[in-house]
């Protein structure tokens, strides 16, 4: 069975993409979940649309606008929420809307027929080019390196920012680094697997992992493993039933999440008796 599935290069690529994505999404998702900024995946992806619009307007490859635009958005969101006492969700929502509006205006300014530029932004796990696999691998390595180097700093700013500042950390700068890492993950992953799957993979595995973990590294490892499991199972099911792969992976993850919640609920209920 498995052999048949992996006779196709696109399925091999999809599996590889899923596994590689799991690493990035599990690790970054852990920070997203404990910092309660699940909103950021949608926010960055849609802010990036402003970059697409700008690239299109300037007549360059629209994709060139994406990474600078989303990094700038991440920095601005971080500065707003740290220096401006704006809640993250508000800052993200503002950039989401403004980014999209900028994109729409740029497209309107450029004469000529306007294609649907969103397709530049959103990928699908079944159409991952080999080149993109290398990109995710690079992203994984970058994330692992930065998170490994800054593990204690990231933990400190996630849990108790004031004490981190008292301890002499550059909390704002570190937070910006974290946000840039998140933004990078989002734009790269969105192109590879699509926005919906990015939201799912950044949220669900880490949320389940948090229920089971007492430390951040433990949560990361569990999130990566869960994410990989959901992806493999989802891919396999989607092939069996011939249904959309991304959607199947998400439903597998969502189902597991509800299962975990139900189990937790039942177990506290039984204990609470």
């Amino acid at each position, binding site marked *: 069975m498995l052999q048949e599935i992996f006779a196709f290069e696109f399925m091999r690529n999809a599996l590889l993409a899923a596994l590689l994505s799991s690493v990035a999404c599990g690790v970054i998702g852990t920070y997203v979940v404990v910092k*309660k900024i699940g909103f950021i995946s949608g926010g960055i992806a849609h802010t990036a649309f402003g970059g697409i619009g700008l690239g299109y307007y300037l007549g360059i490859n629209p994709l060139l606008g994406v990474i600078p635009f989303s990094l700038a958005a991440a920095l601005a969101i971080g500065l707003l929420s740290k220096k401006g006492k704006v809640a993250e969700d508000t800052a993200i929502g503002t950039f989401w809307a403004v980014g999209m509006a900028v994109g729409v205006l740029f497209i309107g300014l450029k004469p000529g027929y306007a294609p649907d530029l969103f397709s530049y932004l959103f990928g699908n796990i079944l159409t991952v080019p080999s080149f993109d696999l290398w990109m995710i691998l690079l992203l994984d390595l970058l994330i692992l390196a930065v998170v490994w180097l800054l593990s204690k700093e990231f*933990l400190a700013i996630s*849990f108790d920012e004031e*004490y981190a500042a*008292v*301890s002499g950390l550059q909390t704002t700068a570190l937070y910006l680094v974290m946000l840039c890492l998140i933004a990078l993950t989002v734009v790269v992953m969105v192109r590879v697997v699509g926005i919906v799957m990015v939201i799912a993979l950044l949220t669900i595995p880490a949320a389940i992992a948090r229920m089971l973990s*007492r430390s951040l590294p433990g949560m990361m490892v569990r999130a990566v493993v869960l994410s990989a499991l959901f992806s493999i199972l989802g891919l396999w099911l989607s092939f069996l039933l011939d249904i959309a792969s991304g959607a199947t992976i998400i439903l597998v993850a969502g189902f597991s999440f509800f299962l975990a919640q139900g189990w937790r609920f039942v177990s506290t209920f039984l204990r609470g008796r």
Partner: protein
Amino acid sequence: MTTPVIECNRLSVELGGVMVLDGVTLSVCKGDYLGLVGPNGGGKTTLLRVILGLEKSSGGSVSVFGALPGSFPERIGYVPQRLFFDREFPISVRELVLMGRLSKKKLFQHFNRIDREKADAALGVAGLERLADRRIGTLSGGELQRTLIARALAGEPELLLLDEPTASVDPQMKTTIYDLLDNQKKKLTIVLVSHDIGGIKDHVSGIATLNTTLYAPRDICL
């Protein structure tokens, strides 16, 4: 020796349009153990936050270890009055205490065995061995208070700033904490904010009262 560790000179602080500190002049010397008392809203927490560099002064000057606040984080330990945190955050008591070693480490440097040992020692001092692997979200009020003290001690500071560290701590632990501070007072400079004047007066080397302005011996260096 009487090197001043903290020097405030006509310090004033304004928050949200309110003068919270006004013309505070204070010097705390090496080895001092200063009790800081005063009514609620008197500005005690604010003074500590200025010394830590968390709040900006709007007038006057402050120097800590002869430099601007925030210059020597590794020499200062801090026990905040309140901790705003997420109860579901996956962090154990041990890890939280280990955070006290943060200021001793460089960027990118990982905690090593020595850090872990110091953290465990601090846990022991605060009587938290039993709870070391507990998620902090499940601690009782006093247990959390002790954890914060352990965190400050783990950093082996020269200057210890404690903001009502015994507010919700049981009497036995309170004694333990006072004794602990007594033991360290040769090595340490301590500023202890408290409302428990009766409790601290036998331990501290001087008491200052803060109610926007400071009522205290002008220079309490010994």
